[in-house]
């Protein structure tokens, strides 16, 4: 039989005015297992806590029930109290007789009756409580950042500045990401390269950052504080140690292919750096397009390389490293326009996407920053900008708003007016959305000062007429049909999740929404965490985002990483699920409902007569389990139980209430 002590708190008059303490004490004395009952004016005070500690010693109590305020208020206080007296902190149960009794009831008779019932319930639960322990887990004081765009760069720099080692993995030969492709940035129109490249250089030079380009995450194992990640270093065919980045190789390479960085508006070589300010500024060989790799002949780059850095024999390498925390910053893809034949994209060279336009405006772009029509190299006089291409379109595109297009289209209209004096911008929109500091003013500037004409109507068709393009729409506000003859059409292409986002989510055991953007742990209160402890999100991989939001989220993720890595050790949550393998059928119903990937199957061996049989059972990773208990109900034989809220305890509570 347990030796249970019950302590009632007056909370001054907060409880005592409504609940008859004497009568409650008398009732408590008769409850099964109760050997000691006492009361105090303020149990949470030092005197009150001392009284509990002394009573535990004097009366050899092994379970403690306190009738007081909500456990959400003082559970931790009192757990420490009983722990100080030598008991397991989880031997404590609190009966909430203040918030859920004395404060909400007026009649002393019925309130006392209810208080007695609440105490009885807590006693019943306490009698079945087991000692629970947190396990201490070491932390690998190193972070992994996946993705070297502005989000990954910012997160890596912030973590590194706090004194922790960071590995930054980027799948392209250079970091920089989408932001490196942009010309100017809204709403200030400062040049993207001017603010980004110094940060890229900082990354390269930071003593705490280890830059791993041309590489991808292959496999993730482990849990918060102790991830083991396998990284695939793709064969670059260039020895990074020897290469000086002189550029002789790509000047001489005979194989030309469309440059991804230039959105196909210019060519690059098979051995290449994506752009002149690349970090690291050392090329990689794109083997799919390299003459040597496709035909076995060429080796021009090897011949011209003064450093002897070209190595055709390099192989992909798998490197396994340990990390305490992971930041995912893999960015976005632009929407494919296959479903939008009506805009003549791909059929007419002067219909381009917004990112292509970005390259046209860029001083280091294919036209040297001159806006010229791809068809004839002449500056355009009239340009139509079509918004929401692939956005807000549940029929053929993304039903969501891509968030950044209204602002960058306003930017494009402004840049057009600056770069091509006298040119006219026509912006076709459904709604213009500009929430953000100085954003509305920026949009105002586009039509007030820079002469852009905004037309409220989605474009229905674009078709060539001679060397011009005809854009057909309607101005919904006036009801006037619109038919514009323009020189260029710019499509504000929607933002998609990365094509491989779901694959990466599976590796990290995080979840995605219906459109493959990674899910945050809570949409409002935990915006940079995921449900997997130790994995954090930054930037557009979590949802469409502009640069200011991306940088803010990256820094926020960095703070989360730093505060995690700063800890001496991690204490696991002791109220976790636990499998009784005797009962477990191994059907893994529990695994299906676990939001944290905390349950895995394992095989145990059992003796049956002379033979040894293998049997599947569930196993809980206590580092990942957060203790929700969804698994306990999914498990039909009740083989998985939740410590601190066991089936036995809850059934006993039900029985005690209904007594």
């Amino acid at each position: 039989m347990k030796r249970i002590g019950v302590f009632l708190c007056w909370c001054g008059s907060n409880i005592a005015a409504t609940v008859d303490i004497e009568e409650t004490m008398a009732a408590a004395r008769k409850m099964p297992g109760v050997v000691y009952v006492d009361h105090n004016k303020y149990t949470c005070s030092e005197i009150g806590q001392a009284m509990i500690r002394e009573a535990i010693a004097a009366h050899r109590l092994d379970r403690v029930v306190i009738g007081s305020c909500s456990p959400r208020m003082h559970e931790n206080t009192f757990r420490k109290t009983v722990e100080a007296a030598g008991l397991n902190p989880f031997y404590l149960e609190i009966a909430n007789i203040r918030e859920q009794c004395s404060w909400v009831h007026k009649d002393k008779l019925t309130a006392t009756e209810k208080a007695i019932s609440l105490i009885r319930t807590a006693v019943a639960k306490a009698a079945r409580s087991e000692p629970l322990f947190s396990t201490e887990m070491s932390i690998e004081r190193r972070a992994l950042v996946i993705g070297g765009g502005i989000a990954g760069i910012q997160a890596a720099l912030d973590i590194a500045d706090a004194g922790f080692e960071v590995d930054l993995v980027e799948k392209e030969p250079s970091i920089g990401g989408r932001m490196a492709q942009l010309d100017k940035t809204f709403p200030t129109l400062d040049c993207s390269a001017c603010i980004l490249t110094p940060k890229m250089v900082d990354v390269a030079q930071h003593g705490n950052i280890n830059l791993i380009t041309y590489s991808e995450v292959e496999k993730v194992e482990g849990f918060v504080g102790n991830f083991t990640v396998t990284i695939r270093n793709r064969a670059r065919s260039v020895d990074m140690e020897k290469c000086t980045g002189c550029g002789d190789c790509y000047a001489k390479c005979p194989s030309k292919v469309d440059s991804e960085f230039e959105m196909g508006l210019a060519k690059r070589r098979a051995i290449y750096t994506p752009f002149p300010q690349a970090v690291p500024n050392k090329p990689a060989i794109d083997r799919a397009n390299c003459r040597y790799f496709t035909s076995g002949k060429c080796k021009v780059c090897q011949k011209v390389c003064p450093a002897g850095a070209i190595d055709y024999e390099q192989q992909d390498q798998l490197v396994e490293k340990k990390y305490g925390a992971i930041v995912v910053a893999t960015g976005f893809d632009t929407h494919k326009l296959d479903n939008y034949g009506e805009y003549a994209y791909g059929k007419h060279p002067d219909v381009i996407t917004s990112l292509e336009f970005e390259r046209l405006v860029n001083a280091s772009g294919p036209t040297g920053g001159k806006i010229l029509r791809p068809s004839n190299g002449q500056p355009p006089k009239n340009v139509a900008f079509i918004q929401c291409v692939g956005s807000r379109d549940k029929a053929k595109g993304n039903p969501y708003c891509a968030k950044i297009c209204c602002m960058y289209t306003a930017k494009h209209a402004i840049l057009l007016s600056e770069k091509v004096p006298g040119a006219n911008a026509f912006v076709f929109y459904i709604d213009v959305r500009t929430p953000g500091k100085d954003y509305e003013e920026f949009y105002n500037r586009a039509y007030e000062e820079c002469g852009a004409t905004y037309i409220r109507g989605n474009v229905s068709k674009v078709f060539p007429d001679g060397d011009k393009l005809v854009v057909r729409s309607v101005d919904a506000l006036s009801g006037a049909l619109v038919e514009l003859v323009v020189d260029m059409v710019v499509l504000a292409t929607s933002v998609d999740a990365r094509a491989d986002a779901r694959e990466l989510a599976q590796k990290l055991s995080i979840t995605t929404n219906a459109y493959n953007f990674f899910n945050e742990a809570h949409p409002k209160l935990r915006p940079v965490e995921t449900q997997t402890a130790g994995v954090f999100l930054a930037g557009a991989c979590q949802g469409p985002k502009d640069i200011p939001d991306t940088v803010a989220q990256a820094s926020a993720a960095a703070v989360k990483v730093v505060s995690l890595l700063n800890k001496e050790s991690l204490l696991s949550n002791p109220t976790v699920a636990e499998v009784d393998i005797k009962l477990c059928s191994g059907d893994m119903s529990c695994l299906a409902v676990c939001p944290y990937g905390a349950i895995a199957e394992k095989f145990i061996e059992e003796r049956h007569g002379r033979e040894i049989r293998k049997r599947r059972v569930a196993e809980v990773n206590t580092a990942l389990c957060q203790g929700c208990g969804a698994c306990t109900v999914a498990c039909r034989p009740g083989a998985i139980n939740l410590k601190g809220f066991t089936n036995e305890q809850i059934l006993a509570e039900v029985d005690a209430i209904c007594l």
Partner: protein
Amino acid sequence: MKVTTDKINSNLIKEVEEVSGQKVSACFQCAKCTGGCPVVWAMDVYPHQILRYAQLGLADELLNSKTLWICASCQTCDSRCPREVDIPKVIEALRLVLLRARGGNYLHPNNLPARVLENAPQQGLVSAFRKYAR
């Protein structure tokens, strides 16, 4: 043309949605339908306006518009609509709703003489019920 609470609260949109099976309220007035309509030159009320009028309960304006009879149901609009509204179906529903309203309710299957039922073409019967029965 005037929008009033009575008109907005009228059952028009509900009725049109029920008959057409289309969600008229989904339209956010991007007007892509109108921009691509091949017979819009002959219309007095444009397709996106038809949807807007329906949303606002402007029954008279819809009733008197030529558009309902000009729409060729070519489906160009519906193939491009980002909100998955099949506009020709909405327009057909408007025709039905308005025709029914005009037609009154004096046909009942039980009251038709057997002779008519036997001899009248089926399509004629269906059409008559459309117009003169509720």
